[in-house]
């Protein structure tokens, strides 16, 4: 009984090993032999993967810039009346802290406001010409979400602590423009990425399908000698996967090279080519390229095999 089981297990192991060899081993050997046939597929995939990765890095940079702008814009300065009492100011502060839309409230004295203004280019001279301190005391309110800024400021209308003539730094037009820009920039980035992903998938599928069609006779012969579906499709899928991995590795190398070049150019010209994109982000993106290539290659070869009958 035990001997029979042992024999069955040995046969099963042999079948498994032989199956893997028949699919993976043969595919690897074929891939190495047919380097010239797969080169166009590797090349087009590599270029598209690098373009896709650069788009992702550009999107990260745009997001960083927008996030910084949004962070600046989400701080609204509410100006206090000169004759506002401490109790009125404390009451206003308490009211704001109780508001869930408000992240933080900071009291800015006239001296603090003057100090900050002097640090802004061009303002120092104007302030000295004005004589004295033209800045009133204020409260800096940071709203949690940029779209809530207008509602928070409107809600403060009529508060006895606030200057009725010039209540706040909030400018509805500027905020709406920024909101609109964020929405449009996000939609454009998403659209570009989707188009690139579609083009990458289509070009890769076509390149791999061309390679498969070139071996259409092979498929027919493999079926004629008794190969089953997985024996025929398996090697093509493995070859597609291998093509994707190689394209991904080459793309990762190219991306690292391009990023290093961009960093060097930034250092020379004191400009930021990709604001907020650092080496860890670039390396993560590069590391994901072989995985993306592998998925793209296997999916494209499966798509390329659809409808191909021997």
């Amino acid at each position, binding site marked *: 009984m035990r001997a029979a089981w042992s024999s069955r297990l040995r046969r099963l192991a042999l079948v498994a090993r032989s199956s893997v060899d028949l699919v993976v081993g043969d595919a690897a050997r074929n891939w190495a032999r047919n380097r010239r046939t797969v080169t166009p597929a590797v090349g087009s995939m590599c270029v598209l993967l690098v373009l896709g990765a650069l788009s992702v890095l550009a999107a990260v940079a745009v997001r960083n810039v927008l996030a910084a702008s949004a962070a600046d814009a989400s701080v609204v300065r509410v100006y206090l009346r000169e004759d506002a009492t401490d109790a009125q100011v404390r009451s206003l502060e308490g009211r704001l802290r109780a508001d869930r839309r408000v992240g933080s409230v900071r009291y800015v004295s006239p001296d603090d406001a003057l100090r900050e203004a002097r640090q802004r280019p061009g303002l120092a001279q104007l302030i000295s010409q004005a004589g004295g301190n033209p800045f009133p005391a204020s409260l800096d309110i940071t709203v949690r979400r940029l779209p809530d800024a207008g509602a928070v400021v409107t809600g403060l209308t009529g508060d006895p602590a606030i200057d009725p003539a010039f209540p706040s730094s909030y400018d509805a037009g500027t905020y709406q423009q920024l909101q609109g820009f964020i929405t449009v920039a996000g939609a454009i980035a998403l659209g570009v990425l989707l188009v690139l992903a579609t083009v990458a998938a289509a070009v890769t599928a076509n390149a791999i399908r061309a390679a498969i069609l070139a071996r259409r006779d092979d498929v027919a012969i493999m079926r004629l000698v*008794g190969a089953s579906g997985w024996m025929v499709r398996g090697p093509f899928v493995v070859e597609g996967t291998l093509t994707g991995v190689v394209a991904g590795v080459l793309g990762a190398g190219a991306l690292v090279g391009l990023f290093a070049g961009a960093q060097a150019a930034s250092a020379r010209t004191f400009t930021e080519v990709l604001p907020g994109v650092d080496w860890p982000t670039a390396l993560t993106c590069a590391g994901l390229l072989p995985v993306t290539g592998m998925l793209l290659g296997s999916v494209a070869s499966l798509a390329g095999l659809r409808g191909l009958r021997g």
Partner: protein
Amino acid sequence: MRDKVIPIRRGIVAPGGAVEIAARVTVDDAIRFEGVSFSYGRVPALRGVTFSMRPGEMAYLLGRSASGKSTLLHLAHAQLRPGGGRVVSAGLTVGRLRGRSLRALRQRVGVVFQDYRLLERLTAVENVAYALRVADLALERGEAARLAAEALREVGLGERLNAFPVELSGGQRQRVAIARALAARPSVLLADEPTASLDEVNGGHVLALLERAARAGTTVLVASCDRELVSGRGRRVLRLDGGRLDGDAMPQPERREVAG
């Protein structure tokens, strides 16, 4: 004549193929066509063809171009399904075969084509070994290569084991195809114009190999349009004309002139 059906019980491996199939297995005939018809669209290729071949028998299928020879072989190899009638090949009824049972038939029925149909990316020994490995997954790569080399030596290609098809002559390629077909020890071997693209000497070698396979017990059916090639071989000749079987001649005993 009714089939003698051998039931294949679940869990029992059928002889000649590790498959369990719900198909009729006959012991009488290796190939049987019963009133078989086939059309390509509206163009009839075979009309009511009936014949059978015993295990180990060799026959030539003679006919002009477009007489239906290739169609008949394709039906016997389950590359086509009969439009009417019934085809039994290597004990399996072709019309019902799908999946595993279809592969079982392809493994029991070897086929040799006029255009060789070798995998150009593989060497001669790899071509033969590939067919062996898909037929039996428990066969190790090394063992398959050894058996393939043996099969190639048997057809006289021991010196060209690692040559790619493009490096071989037509006759050598055809011998690789025969080695590939015979290596898996098929019960039936179909050959479609195997000598059509070969010169007389190479054609003679190829037919000799096929006759040797028949002597070893394989049922061999060779399609040819070359009347001279077939005559005088002392084998059964099936004649196809316009898709109809219009002759089935058994070999005649040699006549001797008596002097005086």
